[in-house]
């Protein structure tokens, strides 16, 4: 176990094998190459990508696979373009609160892909004409949860293929 003191959640311990490597860091944070995904034990709506290097640095994230027609190009194509394996991908988007309205917004412009098999990740930047870095989310958390559950159900119903691995992976932790 690796102990990290002084995080926004206090002192935490994480298993070394859960560390996710970001060879290029995140955009604007090139030195931040190691993170762990912390998930709350309850709803799993939101987790935190906690830096291993900087205890005070944590990005709130949510599963990005619930957004309609997202991402474009596909996660596989994106992973390929950044040199990640394409077989076992988790898709996360960073969320933030709008400083004025306090409304939640998701950074759909630059999702985070994680190759779960090698635990390697990268922040990809999509077409800024199609995706916003400040995509407004439903302000009512219950509505948000419901929208995402509906999307998940729809996908499961549509798919002859199994439900998104990204979802399964994100749900797998923190149970």
């Amino acid at each position, binding site marked *: 176990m690796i102990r990290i003191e002084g995080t926004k959640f206090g002192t935490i311990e994480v298993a070394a094998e*859960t560390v996710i490597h970001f060879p290029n860091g995140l955009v604007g944070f090139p030195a931040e190459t190691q993170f762990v*995904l912390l998930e709350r*034990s309850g709803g799993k709506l939101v987790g935190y990508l906690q830096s291993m290097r900087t205890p005070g640095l944590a990005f709130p994230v949510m599963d990005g696979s619930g957004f309609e027609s997202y991402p474009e190009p596909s996660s596989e194509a994106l992973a390929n373009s950044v040199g990640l394996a394409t077989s076992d991908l988790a898709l996360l988007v960073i969320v933030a609160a709008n400083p004025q309205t306090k409304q939640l917004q998701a950074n759909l412009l630059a999702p985070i892909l994680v190759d*779960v098999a090698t635990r390697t990740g990268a922040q990809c930047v999509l077409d800024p004409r199609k995706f916003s870095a400040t995509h407004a989310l439903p302000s009512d958390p219950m509505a948000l949860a419901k929208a995402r559950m509906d999307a998940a159900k729809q996908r499961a119903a549509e798919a002859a293929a199994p*439900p998104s691995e990204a979802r399964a992976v994100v749900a*797998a932790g923190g149970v």
Partner: protein
Amino acid sequence: MLIIRRRVGERIVIGSNIEVTVASATKSIVRLAIQAPKGIPVLRGEVHDAVVEANVAAASGFIELEFVDDSVDAGGGGVGQDEASEENHDSD
């Protein structure tokens, strides 16, 4: 800061594996053709800056999400690789 004069069709090589070629140029617009290896992000400056800004905002304006309680599960918190691969086998 290095400033280099190039004509259309001429190249600049950065490191051993990044090439920038001047594809065309008018008075106000230069078109660049950039070849870089996978994993090296190539972004328009303003797009890069927008992503940096969003990342900084998310990290610094740390949100007390109303629907996030304090009980962040740090122990089993990482994506469990074993669990994850089991899930995947199940779904195969």
